[in-house]
Structures are given as structure tokens and as C-alpha cells.
């Protein structure tokens, strides 16, 4: 296009302005990030997305603030990069905060960019990945910064259950900023790099007198194991982004689409003899339920969610004949696989996610019940345990339970009870299904006989055996139609494939309502 020679060439001007805007905080900030062992906002996007697929939004947006010297401190992009791109061919929307520009702090226009990206993602029905590395609200912009957070939280909530939302914490995330990740579906943290807390160590020291370091308070290790706020912990940023890509490979783009399919691998076979030796028949002998899972699902590939939190339950994603499923298993190596407050929360949230995004649920049940004790009762195990019942009852994706060894009491109802709406309940021949374990049951039912006996211990043993003979086999439940197939361990994969094929297109309507009232 011809142009006036007195004026700068518009194309050159565009290139110059684009280059300046893309530099964000500039070379100095890039160097600072690298010195701290961190990547820049743009490097992170490059790591996440397929090469050359990023389309940036609002590159030229700048802060409108003028108070407290902000007119002299404007930064192109206002400290955040937003846009869309592809991850292994799947459209995703991205926001990446740039700590090098105004500390990645969230002001009015910074928030506006994120909000716009969220709205576009909801229109497009595509997942959102937010990369957080921010000092928090930009104090200079006052209530406008808070209003920005409010809009982001509102959109996080609107998008919940509609499109998958993933948060990656790769720096500080403090104060109000923590609530956006907390609302999203999955939170990734990097060991030694990520920090997330509502109030910092100084405030805690002033208010409660406690001495705590930043890492002890809000590091990746503590959130992935103790608080459960983080679902995944990576050793570095590269591993973190690789894990995000892996997670996305299991997920549909939105709540209406089907999950993506993979090729069916050669291993494991539908009848896998290796499974025969995994589960000891003796109810008190522990085994790692992950050994069972990796011998059943495609290629032994299992992406565990919350691997270090509430270890008595294992949840995660795997594929069965190429189709993604949500996998749940009680973990006998940790607290004998009981359900307690934390494991109930972990399980219920996972079940609700799978239900929202059309991922069938497969349970490997080996559960002695809910954990007894005052700590649990005072902590509200009733309320938390009820979440599991609510989540499974509410879910209308295919639900399949395999009773591996024992399934007792309320935990039986939650994890394998036909009455809760399970489509298929399978069991191994040595499965025990009862209100409680044989020891406890015999002591209650035969209290008088045991008490009056000349040799109470001998009678107790006899009664325990009697109870075990009746209920320590799955045939009683099968007789009542509460177990519909009894299989050998080696047949597990084939049986689960058939169960899923049978229920793949199930329809199960629910009464129309605004929403249920899950016991939070």
C-alpha cells in the first residue's frame, strides 16, 4: 500500500510496536526470571502449545491507572499474555502472567484481558489453562483490581463443569489470587518454585505468633500432600507442562463433546495372567492398588491425581480400549484403604469432574469402611462422607464397580452399592460384602453366646468363621442380584471393557432443578 514518505511506514510501525509489546518486561526482567530458575511468560506458552499455534489477544492493552506514579510505569500487555493455541491439536485458551512486568500484579486491564479470554473460551467450548506468577492485586489500582478478581472468579464458576479449567502455579500466588485456582478443576505446582497462601509468614507471625517459612506455608510439597490444594506436583516447569499436556489428552474440550480416543495398544491382553498374583486373598495383607490398575488399563498408563494427598484412595485417569475413564481405587497400603475426611473430599471432587466431562467411572473396591475416631467425627466425617454418596448418586456417566476384596458398611454403599445407581457391579471370588468385618459382626450378633461360653475365645473364633463363611464370599450378594458378575482376576480387563461397551451410550435423566445441595 502506498504511503506518505513523511510518515512512518505503517507496516514498520506495526512491527516495531509489536516487538516492543511482545518484550513485556524486557531483557532485564527475562534475566531476572532466569536467575530465579523460572521461565518467562512467553517461554511458558511456547512450552505448552504446539509450535507456531499461538494467537495472542490484546497485545497492546495497557493500564489506564495514573495514581501513585502508575502513568510512568505502564507496561505493554499489562503484565499478562492471553490468547489461544493448540495442545496436541486441541484448541485451548491461555493466560500467562509475567512476573517481570509490574510483578505480574493484577490491575483493571490485566484482569480485563483474562476475563475476555475466559469468555471466548466459554463461547468456543475449549479448555482454559491459566499460568499464574503474580504478586497479587495491584494496590495502586485499588478497588478496580479487586473488581477484576471478582470477574475472574465469576467466570471460573460459570465455566466450571462446562469447559475444563487448569491452573499452573509457577511463582507466587497470594491473597485473593488463590481463589481462582481453587475454583478451577486442576492445580499444578512446581516443587521449590510455586508458593500459594492467603496470608504470608509475616502476617501469620503477627497474628498467631507462629514461625513458618514460605515453603512450609505454601510450597508445592505442602499443598500436594497436606492441604490437597494442588493436584499435581512437578519437579520442574518442563515436567509440569508435559503433565498438563498429558492431562488434556484425557479430557474432552467441553461438557458436550466426547473424550478423545487413542489407539488400543497390544498390552495388556483382555485376559492378563499377571493379575492373578496382585491381590492377596487374605483380607489383611496389603497390596498396592496401582499394581492392579496398571495391569488392567491400556499400556499400563495411569495419570494419578492427588498422588500425595489422602493416599488411602487412588484416583486418576487411564484408558480402556482407547477410551478415557476415571479410575478410583481404595489403597490398602495406606490406612487399609478406609474412607476418611480427606479421602472423601478427594474422591467426591474427582467423581463430579468425571461426571461433568463424560468420563465413565471404574471403582476398584477394597474398603473396610469409614475411619472411626473422635478426630474424624469432630472433623465432620459424616458431612464429608456424605459428599461421596452425593457425588456418585448424582453422576450419570457409566459407573462400574469391581469388588476386589472387601466392601463393608457405608463405604460399600458409596463405592459399589447397586442402590446408588451403579450400572455394573463385578466381584472377585474372594470378595467380602457385609455390613462390617467378620470379627466385629460376630462380636455383636453372638455377644450372648460368646459371653456365656466356657471358652469365649474359642466360641468367638467359631462364630467369626460362621459369619465369614456366609458373607466372605460374593455369592450371597450375587444371589440377591447385588453383584452381577463374579470373575477371576485375570479376566478383569475383558470384563471391564464389556461393562463399558454395554453402558457407553447410557441415558439416565435427573429431575429438573436449579442445582443440588451437596453437603459442603
Amino acid at each position: 500500500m502506498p504511503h506518505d514518505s513523511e510518515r512512518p511506514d505503517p507496516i514498520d510501525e506495526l512491527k516495531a510496536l509489536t516487538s516492543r509489546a511482545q518484550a513485556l518486561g524486557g531483557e532485564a526482567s527475562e534475566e531476572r526470571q532466569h536467575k530465579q530458575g523460572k521461565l518467562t511468560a512467553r517461554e511458558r506458552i511456547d512450552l505448552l502449545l504446539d509450535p507456531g499455534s499461538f494467537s495472542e489477544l490484546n497485545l497492546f492493552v495497557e493500564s489506564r491507572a495514573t495514581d501513585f506514579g502508575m502513568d510512568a510505569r505502564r507496561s505493554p500487555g499489562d503484565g499478562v499474555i492471553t490468547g489461544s493455541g493448540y495442545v496436541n491439536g486441541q484448541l485451548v485458551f491461555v493466560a500467562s502472567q509475567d512476573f517481570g512486568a509490574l510483578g505480574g500484579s493484577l490491575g483493571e486491564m490485566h484482569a480485563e484481558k483474562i476475563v475476555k479470554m475466559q469468555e471466548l473460551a466459554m463461547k468456543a467450548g475449549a479448555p482454559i489453562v491459566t499460568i499464574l506468577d503474580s504478586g497479587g492485586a495491584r494496590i495502586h489500582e485499588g478497588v478496580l483490581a479487586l473488581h477484576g478478581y471478582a470477574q475472574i472468579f465469576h467466570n471460573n464458576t460459570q465455566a466450571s463443569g462446562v469447559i475444563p479449567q487448569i491452573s499452573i502455579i509457577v511463582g507466587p500466588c497470594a491473597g485473593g489470587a488463590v481463589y481462582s485456582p481453587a475454583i478451577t478443576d486442576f492445580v499444578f505446582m512446581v516443587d521449590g518454585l510455586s508458593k500459594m497462601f492467603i496470608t504470608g509468614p509475616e502476617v501469620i507471625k503477627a497474628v498467631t505468633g507462629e514461625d513458618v517459612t514460605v515453603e512450609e506455608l505454601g510450597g508445592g510439597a505442602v499443598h500436594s500432600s497436606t492441604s490437597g490444594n494442588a493436584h499435581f506436583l512437578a519437579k520442574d516447569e518442563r515436567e509440569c507442562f508435559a503433565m498438563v499436556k498429558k492431562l488434556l489428552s484425557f479430557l474432552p474440550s467441553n461438557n458436550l463433546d466426547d473424550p478423545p480416543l487413542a489407539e488400543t495398544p497390544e498390552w495388556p491382553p483382555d485376559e492378563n495372567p499377571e493379575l492373578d498374583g496382585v491381590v492377596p486373598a487374605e483380607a489383611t495383607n496389603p497390596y498396592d492398588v496401582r499394581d492392579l490398575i496398571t495391569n488392567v488399563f491400556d499400556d499400563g498408563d495411569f495419570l494419578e491425581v492427588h498422588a500425595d494427598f489422602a493416599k488411602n484412595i487412588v484416583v486418576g485417569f487411564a484408558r480402556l480400549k482407547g477410551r478415557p475413564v476415571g479410575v478410583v481405587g481404595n489403597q490398602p497400603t495406606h490406612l487399609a484403604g478406609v474412607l476418611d475426611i480427606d479421602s472423601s473430599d478427594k474422591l467426591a471432587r474427582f467423581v463430579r469432574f468425571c461426571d461433568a466431562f463424560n468420563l465413565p467411572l471404574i471403582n476398584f473396591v477394597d474398603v473396610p469402611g469409614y475411619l472411626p475416631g473422635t478426630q474424624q467425627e469432630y472433623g465432620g466425617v459424616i458431612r464429608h462422607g456424605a459428599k461421596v454418596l452425593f457425588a456418585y448418586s448424582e453422576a450419570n456417566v457409566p459407573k462400574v464397580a469391581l469388588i476386589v476384596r472387601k466392601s463393608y458398611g457405608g463405604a460399600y454403599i458409596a463405592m459399589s452399592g447397586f442402590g446408588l445407581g451403579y450400572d455394573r457391579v463385578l466381584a472377585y471370588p474372594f470378595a467380602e460384602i457385609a455390613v462390617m468385618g467378620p470379627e466385629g459382626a460376630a462380636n455383636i450378633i453372638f455377644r450372648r453366646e460368646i459371653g456365656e461360653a466356657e471358652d469365649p475365645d474359642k466360641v468367638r473364633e467359631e462364630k467369626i468363621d460362621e459369619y465369614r463363611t456366609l458373607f466372605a464370599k460374593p455369592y450371597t450378594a450375587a444371589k440377591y442380584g447385588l453383584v452381577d458378575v463374579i470373575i477371576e482376576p485375570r479376566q478383569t480387563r475383558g470384563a471391564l471393557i464389556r461393562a463399558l461397551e454395554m453402558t457407553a451410550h447410557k441415558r439416565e435423566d435427573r429431575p429438573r432443578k436449579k442445582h443440588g445441595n451437596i453437603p459442603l
Partner: protein
Amino acid sequence: MDAFIPAILLTIIGMGVVFGSLIVLMAVILLLEKFVGSGPQEADPGAVEQEAATKGDDMELVLAAAAGYFLETERPEVYVPPVRRGADSLWARTARQGHPIQRRRP
């Protein structure tokens, strides 16, 4: 300074003993190889060919691993298998039936 000359002498004697021992050892090995050892045998070309033919699959794996190493395309620690998504998105089909998202403004 008095200790310097004995130290040098000691070093030379020590090194001499070590090198001398090594030379003797080398001579012993050469003599043993000459009189006792059978030396490297000539490979039977037929046997090699047969082995290569029966282990064809392993060879492919070895070659693939070597190529993967040099091209940095080995299976990474976090493996993501290729997946395919449905071309016909129910989201897209039903999009026009719903209500457009209303943007909230201050």
C-alpha cells in the same frame, strides 16, 4: 633443604619400582598369550548371519533406540499418546440453541 634431595630420590625410586613392575607384568602377559592363550578367533560368518536373522526384532529395537537417542525422540518421562477427537462437535451443533453469554460490565 636437607630433606629435599632424599625426597626427590625417594620419588624416583618409588616411580621406578612401579614402572618396573608394570613392564615386568606386561612381559608376563605377552609371554602367556604366546604360549598358553589361543588369541582372538576368526568369527564364523555363517553363525553371525544366523544370529542376526533370528534376532531381527531386537535389531529393530536397538536401531530405533539409537535413532531415538540421536533425534531426541525417545519416549519421554511423561508420555502422551496420540489421540483423535470427534470431528463433529456436539458443542458446535447445539451452540446456536442456547443463549449467548452476556458480558458483565461495571
